Structures are given as structure tokens and as C-alpha cells.
């Protein structure tokens, strides 16, 4: 099964809409609730990252019997130093993002913690691609 969700940069009202939809889909598919939580927490963090830092993005989601693959592609400023961005507590988030309860430098480490595979590539001034995989068995 393939799904695509658009994510709007800067729109905190809609942040989480993709994760919410995916949660409903995974529930209908009777996926283990523990796995659902890991998938939607990781996707939600990634969604918030796009809303917080990028201009726009798309989440491409593929669900098969043994794996869920999520690929988030955004147009935005990119990440100059991915290793630094992965460090707990490092953040370039704005005051507005912090006021929403995020921007504490926890997002990428939390995505890593919840996913079975994580790959991040980025080009400064172009955008970032976050690929995550979750094993279902």
C-alpha cells in the first residue's frame, strides 16, 4: 500500500495530520499497537521538523506485510552538519517552534530511537530527505 501526504512548512495547525492519518490506517490493518506508536511518534517528529524548518515537504509511505518504509522529502534550508543535528539538545529552532513545545534538540534522536533503520541526506539551501524503516515482525 502506498500513501502520500503533503506537509506545509510553518503551519503548526496542520502539523501531525499525516501521522494522525497513518495511525488510523495502521490501526485498521491491525498492526501491533507498540509498533504503531513507534511509527507515528517518529513520523510526527519528522513532520514537526518539516513544519519547523522547511518550506514544504511530502511524506511517501509504503506498507507491506513485513516492513513500513517512510520517506520524507522537503524543500528547505537543509542541514549543514547532520551529525551535529543528531546530537541530543542541539537545535536551531525558532522561538515560535519552542513555544509549540518543540525545538529542544530531541526530534532526530527520538526518530532514531523509534525506527529500525534511519538514513538522512541533506543539501544546504535545497532540502533534506529522511528515510525510516520499521520492521513489522
Amino acid at each position, binding site marked *: 500500500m502506498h500513501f502520500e501526504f503533503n506537509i506545509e512548512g510553518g503551519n*503548526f*495547525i496542520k*502539523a*501531525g495530520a499525516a*501521522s*494522525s492519518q497513518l*495511525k488510523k490506517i495502521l490501526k485498521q490493518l491491525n498492526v501491533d*499497537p507498540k509498533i504503531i*506508536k513507534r511509527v*507515528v*511518534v517518529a513520523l*510526527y*517528529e519528522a513532520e*514537526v521538523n518539516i513544519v519547523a524548518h522547511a518550506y514544504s515537504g511530502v511524506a511517501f509511505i509504503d506498507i507491506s506485510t513485513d516492513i513500513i518504509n517512510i520517506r520524507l522529502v522537503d524543500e528547505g534550508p537543509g542541514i549543514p552538519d547532520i551529525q551535529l543535528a543528531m546530537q541530543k539538545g542541539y537545535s536551531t529552532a525558532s522561538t515560535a517552534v519552542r513555544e*509549540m*513545545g*518543540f*525545538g*529542544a534538540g*530531541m*526530534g532526530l534522536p*527520538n526518530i532514531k*530511537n523509534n525506527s529500525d533503520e534511519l538514513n538522512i541526506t541533506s543539501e544546504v539551501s535545497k532540502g533534506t530527505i529522511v528515510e525510516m524503516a520499521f520492521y513489522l515482525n
Partner: protein
Amino acid sequence: MKIREVVDILGAKVVSGQNNLNSEVEYAFASDLMSDVLTIEKDNILLLTGLANLQTIRTAEMSDISNIIFVRQKKATPEMIQLAEENDMILVECDYSMYRASGLLYSAGLMPVY
């Protein structure tokens, strides 16, 4: 502990999920930082927070948290209440500080997540 007891202890006001007050909660976590809430792995949690916006509800949705207490006189907006109702959540507004609310619930036996 029943949510009904939580509401009594805090002298609080239920603004969503009035019909589910007999549901039980085992643990509580107090935070204004949603990123920290998203790291909690335990189930059956009550969230105490002073952050009242849509992302508080979204965070609870993703974390399987069904009970939110807003402390420090923070109020849920109609949009927050609508999203909470769609997800069968209980929202409670409390005038106490985070410290006071947490202390009262801890003394009454509600457990910390760590």
C-alpha cells in the same frame, strides 16, 4: 486511580470526555516539552502540562495518552477540544501550579514514569 478522583483532588474542571471519568490511570508525567512526552514508552499515562495548544493534543494522540490536565489556569481552545473528542481524550483544566498538582497526585498514589 480513577480520573474522577484526579479531578476531585485537583478541584479541576473537565472540558472533554465527561462520560469517561471512571477510566483508570496508573502513571503521570509532567512536562511542557512535547519532545520529552514523545519519549515516554509506558502506557496508561496522565499528562500534566502548562502547554495548551493543538500540538499538545497531537502529541498525546501519537503517544497513546488519553488524559491531559492543563495546569496554571491554561485553557483548552474549541479546536483542541474537538481534536480531543475525535480521539476519545479526557481534557481537564486546573488552576493549580504544575508543582502543586503533581505533588497532590503523587501523594495520592499516582506513579511517576521514571
